């Protein structure tokens, strides 16, 4: 655990009264901000170092000064949940401090890239073992979220990042919420990026469960295999059509109660389909073994009650059968320490308007950084 304040007796060591401001200043001074690596509407991401050790970190600075506007919901959610979730496959929040102009800065572990970058990069070749490894790590991280009663609510390839050692980390908890109080009936359905949004949210459900994240991850699973987005709807309405054509038309038969959801419609009345079966999936995902198809099928069932849980998914035979999951350090797409330093230098040169090569690296660096942003 990298958080220095993580030691158990922290509360007894705590400073008194206005010394909180001193702790804040000390925390701030622990890090050296290097160059800006990305900027979005709400945040700027810097590459930074821990002064004492030189270890790389990322600092996400919220643009809005909290002095007037208070703490934005995105940063509140992200900080709230990341403070509690400590897991190998969840991005580690190292520190939070307030800058001199009252901006919140979140110090996160440094990440090298994301799955979207890998899926889209035609020069990266990967196979079943690699997908297994990414899926296993994603499921473990997600299992831990759910075990802690946290819904991520924005699982998608660019929120699944990896370290230089290839360890996958679930990031961006700006939409996360807790579901510790059972029976909450007033949850917003306006969450999860459209292509990964489960049918119950498309239908405006006000009460939902961890099955929403499982569905999103199932769609990521399909995308990792196909290397193109599996359900790319262009509008919310069209998303329902794309979903129903691929997975089946939601009906009382395959999903008891669905017709009473607020926004229920039959999206494809001219093409009503039964819910997709494992043999149906086999035709589309020809490279997959039966246990792999069973896992995929279990994750993308229409009725959330039929969907597999993360825990059960991790027990899938697919993970224990040949070919076995790739060891994280052997996964494609990662960057070695040296390469990364090079990328860093490229970034610096570009910042100084050097027209040298390395533009591709620069773009990728920017993209990675952007993924760290709140609410992009």
């Amino acid at each position, binding site marked *: 655990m990298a958080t220095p304040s993580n030691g158990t007796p922290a509360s007894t060591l705590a400073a*008194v009264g206005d010394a909180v401001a001193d702790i804040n200043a000390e925390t701030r001074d622990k890090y050296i901000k290097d160059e800006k690596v990305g900027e979005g509407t709400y945040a700027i991401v810097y590459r930074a170092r821990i002064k004492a050790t030189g270890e790389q970190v990322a600092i996400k600075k919220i643009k809005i000064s909290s002095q007037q506007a208070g703490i934005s919901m995105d940063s509140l959610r992200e900080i709230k949940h990341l403070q509690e*979730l400590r897991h190998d496959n969840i991005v580690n929040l190292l520190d939070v401090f307030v800058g001199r102009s009252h901006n919140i800065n979140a110090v996160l572990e440094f990440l090298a890239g994301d799955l979207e970058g890998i899926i889209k990069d035609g020069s990266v070749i990967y196979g079943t073992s690699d997908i297994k490894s990414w899926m296993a790590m994603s499921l473990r991280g997600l299992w831990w979220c759910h075990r802690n009663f946290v819904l991520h609510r924005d699982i998608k390839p660019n929120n699944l990042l990896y370290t230089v050692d290839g360890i996958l980390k679930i990031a961006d908890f700006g939409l996360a919420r807790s579901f510790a109080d059972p029976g909450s009936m007033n949850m917003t359905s306006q969450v999860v990026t459209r292509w990964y949004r489960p049918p119950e949210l498309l239908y405006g459900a006000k009460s939902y469960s961890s099955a929403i994240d499982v569905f999103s991850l199932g769609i990521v699973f399909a995308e990792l295999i196909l290397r193109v987005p599996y359900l790319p709807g262009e509008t919310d309405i069209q998303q329902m059509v794309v979903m129903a054509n691929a997975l089946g038309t939601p009906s009382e038969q395959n999903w008891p109660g669905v017709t009473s959801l607020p926004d229920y419609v039959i999206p494809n009345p001219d093409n009503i389909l039964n819910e997709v079966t494992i043999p149906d999936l086999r035709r589309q995902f020809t490279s997959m073994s039966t246990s792999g198809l069973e896992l995929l099928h279990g994750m993308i069932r229409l009725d959330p009650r039929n969907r597999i849980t993360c825990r059960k998914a991790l027990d899938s035979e697919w993970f224990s059968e040949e070919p076995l999951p790739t060891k994280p350090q052997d996964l494609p797409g990662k960057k070695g320490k040296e390469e990364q330093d090079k990328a860093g230098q490229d970034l610096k040169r570009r910042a100084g308007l050097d027209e040298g090569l390395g533009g591709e690296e620069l773009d990728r660096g920017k993209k990675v950084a952007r993924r760290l942003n709140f609410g992009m």
Partner: protein
Amino acid sequence: MEDVIYRQSTQYRFFTFTPSSLSSLRAATNAHAAQQLLLELGSSASPELMLTPIEELKLVTYYLTTLFALCDHFKTGSAVKATAMTFLSRLYLRISPLQIHPKTLLLPILFLAFKSETGIQSTTWFIKTAAEVNLITTKEELLAPEINIAMNLRWSFQVLHPYRGIEGVKAELLVRGELPKERVERSCAKARSLLTGGGLFTDCYFLYTPGQITMAGLWAVDAEMCEGYLRSKMPAGEEKVLEKLLRVVRECAQWHLLAKTEDGNNYPGLLLRLPQNGVFMDAEVPAELKKEAVRIDRKLQLLRKPLNGKVKHQATDAAEEERRAKKRKLEQDKMDLDDVFGGGSIIPKK
């Protein structure tokens, strides 16, 4: 597994103490703040006029009752209420009323608890609802302290509430069907209202794990049912573990949740919220204790009076003008803010 999750939590890492470390922290906070205030006041100050640590504790606990009533007015539900109450208790571990008066933080704390628990962030609604009980605030006054509150809460917004555990125990006991349904339901309902009521005024959250407090809540209302349940959960051969657990549960229930003024004090000399220390422990404050709180409040006001002119006002002129305008309007209606806060009910008479 529960233990792993709990030990990772900020509740354990930053806000769990032994009785004596909790007491020392409170004493140190008071001493530091008093020293600082004496410096600020200069020659006009006298150390005897300072609030004592126990007076601070009484005052903060008194404002917990105000916050509790405020939550009822806002119809917050248990989660927001329990979180807001915990935020206020946690804040005053490391800051002192000598530095920031708790009444100025009640609305910002409640608003932050709403944001954290429900995602509700409409200031318009909030300001309007507060005004119904004559608490006048502006958007800026509500939001500006947020970052300071967060810093003082050590960026910890999640609170693990023991009342949540009751539902699980109830479901399990009902499925087992060994006890009459009515008894299970009645005892669990009583335990829940204890943990979302009087329990929020105790030091339990600082001293015990959420699971222990859940069980203590049950023990307090139905000891037999609670102990039977715990025995049934413990594998054979774990008698020592069971006995230890029972000891902790009974202690939490008897020494905190059920503590009475006339009980012997099990923590002599420690700064803990206990009725034996004259700290009121419930939403309903007895008249003489209310008088005591008003006295401490006046003392604090007098003490800080010389500084009033010097205090930097963070609000902008516009916000200040808005606030004053609203206040003037209220005063026309013969409402007096200070009186409202000085000890009377914050809920207006119907």
